[in-house]
């Protein structure tokens, strides 16, 4: 009788642990998908962005080059952390078929301009006051960086401040992807 009771207790404990585990996976498992972004492997949504220098830039006109698309805000501390690395990488890839584009979100123009002057961003930077570009890319915070291959397909998304080596890995991957990748999926 005592042995049976112990077995019952163990069975109840195992069942509870199993239920919590399964429930946890069902709830938090999806968050991994969110970070991976359902847009990876699809065509990068096209947009036209007003640049801080007064001109504008259309994404689809950059086809044929690998693209690093970085979403940032002037109030975002991790954005400031990654800014020098982005600038150094842009200088490094300047003579390669690679384009860097920054999109300023949830910010005001004067703060964004001060930030750009301070961190000396030489590559094109634009603003998204309506939030259409950021939602089109499924952005949920700053900084977030997308890597797009020369055919216009999103190859990777990086959430958080970029660290040394990450840019090289993802850009090389995007450049490698350029060899005859047909655009099967439509990302918007």
């Amino acid at each position, binding site marked *: 009788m005592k042995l049976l009771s112990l077995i019952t207790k163990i069975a109840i404990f195992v069942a509870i642990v199993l239920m919590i585990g399964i429930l946890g996976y069902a709830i938090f*498992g*999806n968050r991994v998908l969110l970070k991976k*972004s359902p847009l990876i492997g699809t065509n990068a949504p096209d947009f036209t962005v007003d640049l801080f220098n007064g001109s504008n830039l259309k994404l689809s006109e950059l086809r044929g080059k690998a693209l690093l698309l970085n979403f940032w805000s002037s109030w975002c501390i991790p954005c400031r952390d990654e800014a020098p690395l982005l600038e150094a990488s842009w200088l490094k890839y300047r003579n390669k078929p690679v384009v860097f584009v920054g999109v300023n979100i949830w910010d005001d123009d004067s703060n964004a301009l001060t930030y750009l002057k301070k961190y000396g961003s030489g590559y094109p930077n634009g603003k998204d006051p309506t*939030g259409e570009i950021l939602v089109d890319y499924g952005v*949920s915070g700053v900084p977030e960086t997308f890597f797009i291959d020369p055919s216009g397909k999103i190859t990777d998304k990086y959430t958080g401040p970029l660290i040394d080596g990450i840019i090289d890995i993802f850009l090389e991957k995007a450049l490698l992807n350029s060899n005859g990748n047909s655009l099967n999926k439509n990302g*918007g």
Partner: protein
Amino acid sequence: MCKLSHLTKLLYLLPILLLSLITGINNSISENIDDQVSEISSLLMCPVCQGQSVAESNSDLAKDMRSIIRKKVQEGESQEEIISYFVNRYGDSILGSPPAKGVNWLLWLLPLFSLIFGGLGMGLFIYRSRETRIRNKNLSDEKSIPNETEYFDKIDKDLKDIES
């Protein structure tokens, strides 16, 4: 002259009537769009908030999402199209109620299983405690009989002693 005066009055009234009609229609359309935006926003979870829908959240992202929903509603997109647009960008986790597919089935089935097995467990527990209570009562009854006999024997013996 009198007839002409009525006609003039009617002519004056006509623009006012038309204006109120147009305003009424506009208000009705606007309310309809507001309702649709509110309904769709309440079906989507804010990706940067804890347990808040896009309709409830005041975050910048939720505001942007609401204005995009409004734009899409005005452009005539259906609720399904708008929801699918957000799912394609943020994944299934943006949905207020997870779709019943894959591992998500567990979210729908676990409460049912918990109810069934919990109910069975409770029933078993109640049944067992009642059994134990009855068994204990029987045992105490069995034990009380010899005790009482001994007690009455002692009384008899004492009474006999007093009498003698």
